[in-house]
């Protein structure tokens, strides 16, 4: 790789980021600016920022690598990413969230829920859950970004970690939501251009769309030879129904991540940053195309990498990459793409990590500052923005320390990136999704029901993580320590915790709603003002 060219690209990229962060800083004057970008962000910026936050490095490299193993069935996740993560999220959640957020003058996701259910405790508890659980997800992103920077630029891991976190922290703390969204839009654009080039190259180098797929289909015996016992039937076929591979693909990868996106605090808050409903409708257009070009392309490239490597080395992608799933996409880029693209792709991955991390920092900071300290504990320091800035610094330090510590506990550092992401997505969906739907659509839903489903979602999720889902229960070791076995229910050991926790949380919300006092008319009238049935 040409280091001079890479250095030039990195400096150019960082200069643009610094400029946009500074612009965000100069334009931030109030709490509303700091937390919601003044509620006046352009729909295209909002859409790309939403997409770039949604898509992290692990979505491209981690899940792209997974596609090289599971095959094109992973594209069901892209269908959900677009249809649930963009279309349903914007049209059925976004429009009402924006309107209700406006009616209730809410600045964060927990604040929206707290005000809608007239429960200060809900806001405080929601804020605390985000502050405590999100660092795991943030640490996973930091770990991925820092490891990647460290290998690319040949610098020690600790140095790259500090530099990586430092740059993002700077523009998030100073520029608030404006800084985050302006830089996201730029980072998203870099990602879009890069993935477009990748898509065109992969199909042209493997003989065209149908020819490429046919070549991959012909390689099916290679996949069956290795994973046939677990249910693999080839890279262009779904695994055998209910086989271990099918369960992992459908429950963890497709449903876990696909549905979990609906109740992500860092994404929900973006609905409140645009000034009117039709801007959200416009954002659907850009958002759908953007996500297709991110995970869609990453999964197609991951799966087709098998064709490329088999033609070159007579080995499938996983074996060519030394059995490391996360190494497949980078190796393909290095071997199959022109030299200048390698540098562009590095920047793309850096952009993907930074755009996700910046929103995580912002969400954790506002959850801890605004929801927990300011509204829950009634802490008052100088002014609201200062509280949020200090809380953000605390959240950044917390997740950075976690990122320093994680590799010490868990040698397979890359596996924890995907695990950390999946745990956070599942936990958020189980704790927040039923009450979020209730908040937007069911006036009858009470604060008691919201809180009951919140605790039920967290409780079942944690129980499943510690005692059932073997992927986490085994490394955690608590189940083995107490009961002498890695899982209490072997038949459910491959089922994602979300699949167990979300139904329990939904049922709890419905049942408790019928047995509890309805919320006051005053609050629901205010929340649902100008919202059509």
């Amino acid at each position: 790789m040409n280091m001079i060219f890479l250095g030039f690209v990195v400096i150019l990229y960082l200069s643009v980021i610094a400029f946009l962060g500074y612009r965000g800083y100069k334009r931030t004057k109030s709490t509303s600016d700091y937390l919601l970008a003044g509620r006046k962000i352009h729909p295209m910026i909002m859409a790309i920022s939403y997409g770039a936050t949604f898509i992290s490095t692990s979505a491209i490299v981690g899940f792209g690598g997974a596609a090289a193993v599971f095959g094109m069935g992973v594209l069901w996740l892209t269908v959900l990413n677009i249809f649930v993560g963009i279309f349903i999220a914007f049209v059925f959640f976004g429009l009402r969230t924006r309107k209700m957020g406006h009616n209730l003058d809410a600045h964060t996701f927990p604040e929206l829920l707290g005000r809608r259910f007239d429960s200060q405790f809900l806001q405080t508890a929601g804020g605390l859950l985000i502050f405590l659980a999100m660092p795991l997800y943030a640490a996973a992103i930091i770990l991925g970004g820092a490891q990647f920077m460290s290998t690319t630029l040949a610098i020690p891991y600790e140095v790259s970690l500090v530099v990586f976190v430092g740059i993002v922290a700077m523009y998030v703390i100073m520029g608030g939501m404006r800084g985050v969204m302006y830089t996201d839009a730029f980072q998203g654009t870099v990602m879009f251009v890069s993935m477009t080039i990748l898509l065109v190259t992969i199909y042209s180098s493997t003989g065209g769309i149908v020819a490429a797929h046919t070549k991959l289909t012909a390689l099916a015996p290679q996949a069956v030879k290795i994973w046939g016992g677990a249910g693999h039937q080839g890279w262009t076929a779904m695994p055998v129904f209910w086989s271990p591979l099918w369960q992992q693909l459908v429950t963890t990868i497709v449903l876990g991540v696909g549905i979990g996106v609906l109740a992500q605090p860092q994404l929900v808050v973006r609905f409140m940053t645009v000034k009117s409903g039709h801007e959200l409708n416009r954002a659907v257009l850009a958002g759908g195309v953007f996500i297709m070009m991110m995970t869609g392309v990453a999964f197609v490239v991951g799966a087709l990498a098998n064709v490329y490597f088999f033609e070159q080395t007579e080995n499938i992608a996983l074996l060519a990459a030394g059995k490391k799933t996360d190494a497949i996409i980078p190796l393909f880029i290095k071997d199959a793409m022109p030299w200048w693209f390698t540098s562009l792709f590095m920047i793309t991955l850096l952009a993907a990590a930074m755009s996700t991390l910046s929103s995580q920092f912002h969400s954790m900071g506002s959850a801890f500052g605004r929801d927990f300290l300011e509204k829950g504990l009634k802490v008052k320091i100088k002014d609201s923005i200062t509280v949020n800035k200090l809380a953000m610094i605390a959240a950044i330090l917390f997740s950075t320390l976690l990122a320093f510590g994680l590799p010490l506990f868990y040698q397979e550092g890359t596996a924890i990136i995907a695990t950390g992401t999946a745990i956070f997505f599942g936990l958020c969906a189980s704790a927040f999704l039923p009450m979020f739907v209730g908040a937007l659509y069911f006036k009858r839903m009470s604060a008691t029901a919201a809180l009951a489903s919140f605790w039920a979602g967290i409780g079942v999720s944690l129980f499943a993580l510690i005692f059932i889902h073997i992927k986490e229960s085994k490394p955690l070791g608590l189940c083995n320590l107490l009961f002498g076995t890695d899982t209490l229910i072997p038949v459910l050991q491959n089922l994602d915790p979300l699949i167990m926790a979300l139904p329990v949380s939904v049922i709890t919300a419905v049942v408790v709603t019928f047995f509890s006092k309805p919320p006051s008319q005053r609050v629901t009238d205010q929340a649902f003002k100008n919202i059509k049935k």
Partner: protein
Amino acid sequence: MLGFQDWGVTLAYVGTIVSAVICVVYGIVNWNRPREDEESEINEELEWEKNDPELKEGNI
């Protein structure tokens, strides 16, 4: 179809493109909808800015 082995993957591939097309069509059709609430919200925002203490104190 499309060189794939089974319908499960074919549907996923086509579904990806169809979902994105739905988003594009929806965005174009609803480009200016809903629009009735914009003015009232701007007024509401101006009212908040006058009364909300948080907005006054937040200087950086």
